[in-house]
């Protein structure tokens, strides 16, 4: 099913708040092969970004297995720290079709409990068409 191009510009509802706990950071750091660390890995904000992407895909009834991550960029206003509670709000910034695949561009603003911007996460998803 092609992705509806009229989604461009639409902001989706914010995700549920995601608390940045020591346990979550340790599990993430361990999974990427690092040890326990006091520093939150710079890609840790993918956790809340992915929640926003997943909410969007569910809303559009897109099957996750047909999605491949094409591009991911983070721009940080400040480092994420344990104790933060992050919420992501995703906007669709582009939809185009190339060779039977839909290329979906998104931008998510990650804010903390005070509403301050912590990180902007842009993601491009490739929706693989075909059978």
């Amino acid at each position, binding site marked *: 099913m092609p992705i509806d191009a009229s989604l461009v510009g639409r902001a989706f509802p914010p995700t549920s708040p995601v608390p940045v706990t020591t346990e*979550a950071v340790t*599990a*993430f750091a*361990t*999974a*990427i*092969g*690092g040890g326990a660390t006091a*520093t939150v*890995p*710079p*890609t840790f904000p*993918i*956790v809340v970004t*992915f*929640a926003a992407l*997943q909410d969007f895909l569910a809303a559009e009834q897109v099957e*996750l*297995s*047909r*999605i*491949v*991550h*094409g*591009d*991911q*960029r*983070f*721009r*940080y206003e400040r*480092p994420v720290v344990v104790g933060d509670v992050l919420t992501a709000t995703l906007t669709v910034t582009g939809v185009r079709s190339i060779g039977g695949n839909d290329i979906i561009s998104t931008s998510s603003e990650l804010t903390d409990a005070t509403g301050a911007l912590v990180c902007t996460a*842009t993601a*491009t998803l490739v929706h*693989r068409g*075909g059978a």
Partner: protein
Amino acid sequence: MTALTPGAALEPLTYEITRADLVAYAVASGDHNPIHQDEEIARAVGLPGVIAHGMYTLALVGRAVAAWTDEAEVLELGAKFVAPVLVPAEGAARVTVAGTVGDRSDDGLLTLALEVTADGTKVLGAPKVTVRA
């Protein structure tokens, strides 16, 4: 730690990714896309086999940057995922992160020019890293 002089080569760092790592990463990140776990599903959607999360590879870049810069604050991090990192059922994929120190701006921000490969194939395109170092 490498001296962060513009133009200096950064010591290449190689990391391994196993299927067990992908299982742990799925749990830790929330990304349970079966193309990172299940050979049959990966092949059914036209992939050559189980592939690592693109974000796993980008996380390894984050580790390399932390090692090179003594955990400097990261201001920008990103890349295109231009080729899949195939992770075999037995053994591991090997990802190498190499690069050179780029320009330093007047306000003390440093860019790193990176080359990220898996078993010799370039897997990240236009990687962008800016740190305060």
